[in-house]
């Protein structure tokens, strides 16, 4: 039996008997549906919530019906401007031929109520103008000489679903791969030194490179298990959340092209992360020190995933696909949103992530074979 396999098997047994790792994987599987459930609840509540308008003056005929139909509740206010600061969401003063609106842009409820009011007033103005023209025997169509007719090339529901997945899925994937293997990587390196088993291990005839391969493979496996648990639970939760649209197509689903891309990218990221965390763990003298070394890695790697959130239409050239993690996020986004694989991008991403993993492995091996590994302890 090869030394790498012997080490791998022993590490997996130890990891699966470690409560810290099992709790991390369990939480990964549990947290994602909870977060999605909260997001869904908040979104539903925001869309259906009623907002209050404090008003003064005479409400134009018929406008109150429109406002109530869009969940805007009218309450009289002596001073709408003052009321809009706290008591109501927005304040409105109806004058002849004019509507003054008072709202605090720092309040989200005020922004939503103001947007709804603008929409309602727009519809009211259009209806009034059309009625006036009709009474004079003029076709109201002259108000809209160019009719805009939209022809969406894909389902708007599916587009919204893809946009959501293109951010959320890479984020979950990267976070779970890193956090899933975090404890195992430190335990198999710094933990080995802290428990004083490292010297005995290095006294065996097993080549250190094989020992290292076994450890990295075990950390990679547990990272992927954590990622699969998190993503599996995410899709399970998404299957329970219905979007507006015809039944059968109103659930968030992953395109068939994105699945193999996601598996390939997850494997590359997991190997790379495992090598880096094992190398950092090898540098540490204790589990606690290992945690201090590895934790900043989380923030460094999660930053590229956030770019997609802040710049949704970020379409970089091929050179950007050389940047590890950012490339993984971009390739996944392409596959999810466009349902297609951009092969040059995927090839560059593969080379970049593979090179990162190989460099990290060599760094870990160098650290693992130097005398300082023992004399520093």
């Amino acid at each position, binding site marked *: *039996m090869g*030394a790498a396999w*012997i*080490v791998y098997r*022993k590490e997996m*047994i*130890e990891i699966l*008997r*470690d409560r810290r790792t099992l709790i991390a994987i369990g939480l990964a599987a549990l947290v994602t549906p909870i977060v999605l459930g909260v997001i869904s609840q908040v979104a539903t509540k925001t869309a259906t919530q009623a907002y209050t308008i404090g008003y003064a003056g005479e409400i134009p005929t018929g406008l109150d019906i429109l406002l109530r139909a869009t969940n805007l509740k009218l309450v009289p206010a002596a001073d709408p401007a003052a009321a809009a600061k706290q008591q109501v969401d927005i304040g409105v003063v109806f004058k002849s031929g004019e509507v003054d609106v008072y709202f605090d842009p720092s309040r989200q409820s005020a922004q939503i109520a103001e947007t709804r009011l603008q929409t309602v007033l727009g519809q009211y103005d259009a209806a009034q103008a059309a009625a006036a023209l009709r009474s004079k025997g003029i076709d109201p169509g002259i108000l809209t000489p160019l009719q805009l007719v939209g022809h969406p090339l894909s389902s708007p529901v599916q587009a919204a679903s893809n946009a959501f997945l293109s951010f959320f899925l890479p984020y979950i994937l990267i976070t779970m791969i890193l956090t899933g293997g975090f404890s195992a990587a430190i335990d198999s390196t710094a933990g080995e030194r802290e*428990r*004083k*088993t*490292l*010297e*005995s*291990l*290095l*006294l*065996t*005839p*097993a*080549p250190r490179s094989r020992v290292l391969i076994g450890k990295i493979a075990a950390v990679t496996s547990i990272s992927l298990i954590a990622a699969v648990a998190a993503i599996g639970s995410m899709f399970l939760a998404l299957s329970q959340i219905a979007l507006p649209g015809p039944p059968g197509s109103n659930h968030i689903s992953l395109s068939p092209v994105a699945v193999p891309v996601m598996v390939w990218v997850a494997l590359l990221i997991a190997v790379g992360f495992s090598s880096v965390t094992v190398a950092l763990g090898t540098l540490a003298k204790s589990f606690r020190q290992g945690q201090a070394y590895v934790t900043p890695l989380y923030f460094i790697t999660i930053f590229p995933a956030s770019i997609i959130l802040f710049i949704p239409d970020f379409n970089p050239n091929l050179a950007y696909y050389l940047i590890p993690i950012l490339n993984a996020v971009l390739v996944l986004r392409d596959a999810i949103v466009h349902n297609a694989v951009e092969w040059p991008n995927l090839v560059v991403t593969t080379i970049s992530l593979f090179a990162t993993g190989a460099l990290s492995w060599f760094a870990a091996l160098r650290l693992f074979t130097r*005398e300082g590994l*023992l*004399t520093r302890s």
Partner: protein
Amino acid sequence: MAVERLGKTLGKNQVLRGISFQAQHGEIFGLLGPNGAGKTTTLRIICTLLSPDSGTVEVVGFDTRTAPEEVRRRIGVVTADIGVYPRLSARENIAYFAQLSEVPDRELRRRVDAVIERLDMGSFADQRAESLSSGQRQKVAIARAIIHDPQVLMFDEPTSNLDVLASREVREFMVESKGRGKCVIFSTHVMHDAERLCDRITILHEGRVVASGPTAEVRGNRRELEDAFLELVGVA
């Protein structure tokens, strides 16, 4: 085992300054010295964990520099740091090291069972190592060091963390190993143990050999070996 003019510097500290000695099969060879004398560094070089800056070490005909893996196949090391894998049982700990030491799969079970019986570990062999006492852990450490039946056994302060009973068992095991024809290297600063167990000794002080030979010869006409030791390291 032959150690010739061994030199080693760690950081700015010259730990070994050209030490030489030889140890034979069927004897307990004592490597004595105060803390910081260079005993552990010497043992680490012998078992290939460190490389010498100068000099050579030969174990059962293999040079530690040119054939480190062959050397590791032929040695077993027991130290004061009795670290074991806490989430593995005693048996799993031993089997893991047996596999890494290239014990054939078909012999694995028999060898592990035999060593468990030899060290009287049957009552706790299947318990997780995290629940074992220091003495029981030391037995696991000894078991993993001998599971591949090495020709050379090295004990580096093996009783320093043990109670009286467990220490006696370790000493008895060293004597038994000598009886089986093994070359036993015993590094210690406990002169009483050395005097009782060692056939020959080498005393190190500040990285140099200050005395070497049969135990009785080094002690000379002094009442105890400790008196000779203190005299040689310049304390008496």
